[in-house]
């Protein structure tokens, strides 16, 4: 291997690493706020890619149907819960929030078909609009009724949810793989190093969204309330910060980042309804390197996973996943040695 090949592999690895950064940061965000290891994040990324592809072909994407079904279920669950708790007066608000709002988003995309035929930016925007309600609705249907369960139980439910989503993906998107139009065919050259415009765009997006998230946490009250929920759940409740609301915001922010990653990867990788799992799992390895709490650690970990994967596939393509996932074992050993156990806050 000479320098040229190494540099190509490194750039390629950093680009896929940047994709994992976007997904992994969302995973950490959701885990710290809700204690849920949200495995279906990879699926959210894949579904965004499939949505964008459908819009390019001028079809109403399967996501629309998925959102309508989930909105119906979430509304049902919420109304039943409100009735059982004697809070019937809150039903109109619930209908607005869980039914009218998601349906309105789908309606906007449906009605504006002539618009998105002409503009790639609009297609990307509409793909994100369609994808954003999915995770918050799943949260309402699946996780909120068991919000106080153990982390392990929430993880098992996440696995089940992932398989359910893959099945729904097949139903709504069909078995064909898709690849979307390239966003740019620019190529930058620095000496002997070549960077494709798409790779640069991916890395730029990872930096941009990490920066935005940082600003959100540090400079907005909602961002601070999310951190507060993550740091001390009962303390946050005692300040009137509703963990359910923090959870919903975390799912929306996380879905946005996963959605962006799906859009960026769609022109370079062929995406199928079940492509999300490996994406999510690699991002998860990155998140584990950050201990599922540290954002900088997660970003470095995800980039490392991307680079390792790239070099591993050059050495022996068949073994790249073996190499990447075997990495988990030394990392977990290392983490269990160095991690300091701080004073645990009891969950009530």
């Amino acid at each position, binding site marked *: 291997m000479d320098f040229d090949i190494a540099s190509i592999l490194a750039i390629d690895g950093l680009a896929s690493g940047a994709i994992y950064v976007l997904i992994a940061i969302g995973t950490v965000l959701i885990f710290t706020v809700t204690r849920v290891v949200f495995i279906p994040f990879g699926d959210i990324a894949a579904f965004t890619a499939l949505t964008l592809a459908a819009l390019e072909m001028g079809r109403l994407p399967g996501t629309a149907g998925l959102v309508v079904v989930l909105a119906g279920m979430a509304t049902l669950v919420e109304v039943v819960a409100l009735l059982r*708790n*004697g*809070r019937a007066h809150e039903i109109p608000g619930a209908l607005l929030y869980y039914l009218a709002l998601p349906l309105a988003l789908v309606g906007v995309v449906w009605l504006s078909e002539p618009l998105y035929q002409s503009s790639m930016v609009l297609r990307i925007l509409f793909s994100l609009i369609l994808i954003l309600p999915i995770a918050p609705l799943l949260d309402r249907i699946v996780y909120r009724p068991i919000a106080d369960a153990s982390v392990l139980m929430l993880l098992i439910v996440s696995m089940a949810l992932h398989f359910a989503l893959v099945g729904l993906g097949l139903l709504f998107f069909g078995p064909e793989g898709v690849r979307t139009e390239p966003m740019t065919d620019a190529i930058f050259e620095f000496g002997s190093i070549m960077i494709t415009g798409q790779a640069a765009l991916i890395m730029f997006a990872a930096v941009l969204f990490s920066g935005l998230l940082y600003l959100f946490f540090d400079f907005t*009250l909602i961002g*601070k*309330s999310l*951190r*507060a929920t993550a*740091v*001390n759940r*009962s*303390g*946050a*409740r*005692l*300040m*009137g*910060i*509703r963990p359910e609301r923090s959870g919903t915001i975390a799912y929306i922010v996380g879905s946005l980042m996963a959605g962006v990653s799906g859009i960026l990867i769609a022109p370079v990788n062929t995406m199928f309804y079940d492509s999300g799992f490996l994406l999510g799992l690699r991002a998860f390895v990155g998140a584990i390197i950050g201990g599922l709490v540290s954002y900088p650690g997660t970003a470095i970990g995800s980039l490392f996973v991307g680079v390792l994967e790239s070099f591993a596939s050059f050495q022996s393509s068949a073994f790249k996943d073996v190499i990447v996932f075997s990495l988990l074992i030394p990392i977990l050993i290392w983490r269990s040695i160095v991690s300091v156990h701080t004073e645990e*806050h009891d969950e*009530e």
Partner: protein
Amino acid sequence: MPLLTIEDVSVSYGKVDAVRSVSLQVEEGQIVTVIGPNGAGKTTLMLATIGLLRSFGRMTFMGEDLSRLSVEDRIEKGLCLVPEKRELFAEMSVRDNLLLGAYTRYNRATINNELEAVYERFPRLKQRHKQDAGTLSGGERQMLALGRALMTKPKLLVLDEPSLGLAPLIVREIFHTVASLRELGVSVLLVEQNARAALETADVGYVLETGEIVQSGEASSLIHDPRLMAAYLGGH
């Protein structure tokens, strides 16, 4: 109409009753204390009042039934609890902790004045406003917990063992602060093992033993009660 009415309230952990048909009242502007030994159910009663524990019986706050209200609803109505464990946001700055106190009623225009008011009351917090809450000393943490609670603009502040684990000088400062809340129009429900300091500060006292109220009355008369004195006040 009393601010808070607790009527025939029981709380149990599984089959064990921690609190049995307790009744008490807090009038507007009053400081009411619940004293009693370790394990009497004081903390349990407070957690039930704020809604973190399920209870049976009737609780009303400003005439409104609390039973269907979540913890967060109760905070919005003007109830606030400073728990025994303080429950600060350890990895966030002192300033952010205070800001989040104002979460339910955040107003960009007035927030700086509100912060200043808290800093005036606790100048130590101003010196440390950029530090993480987790790096503060025990006394400073209690001040931050009180300051953060005051940022919620409570009508009734429930304090669970505010003097626990603190040095005597700081305990005096904390009780001084509690007494000064009257001027702010904040009523206080104070749970304490430090019975003497609590009774000296409060208007009305209740004595809780093994989950039941065994005695109640004006704080000034309870403090001279010979039986209480022997049990909790250690004589003179």
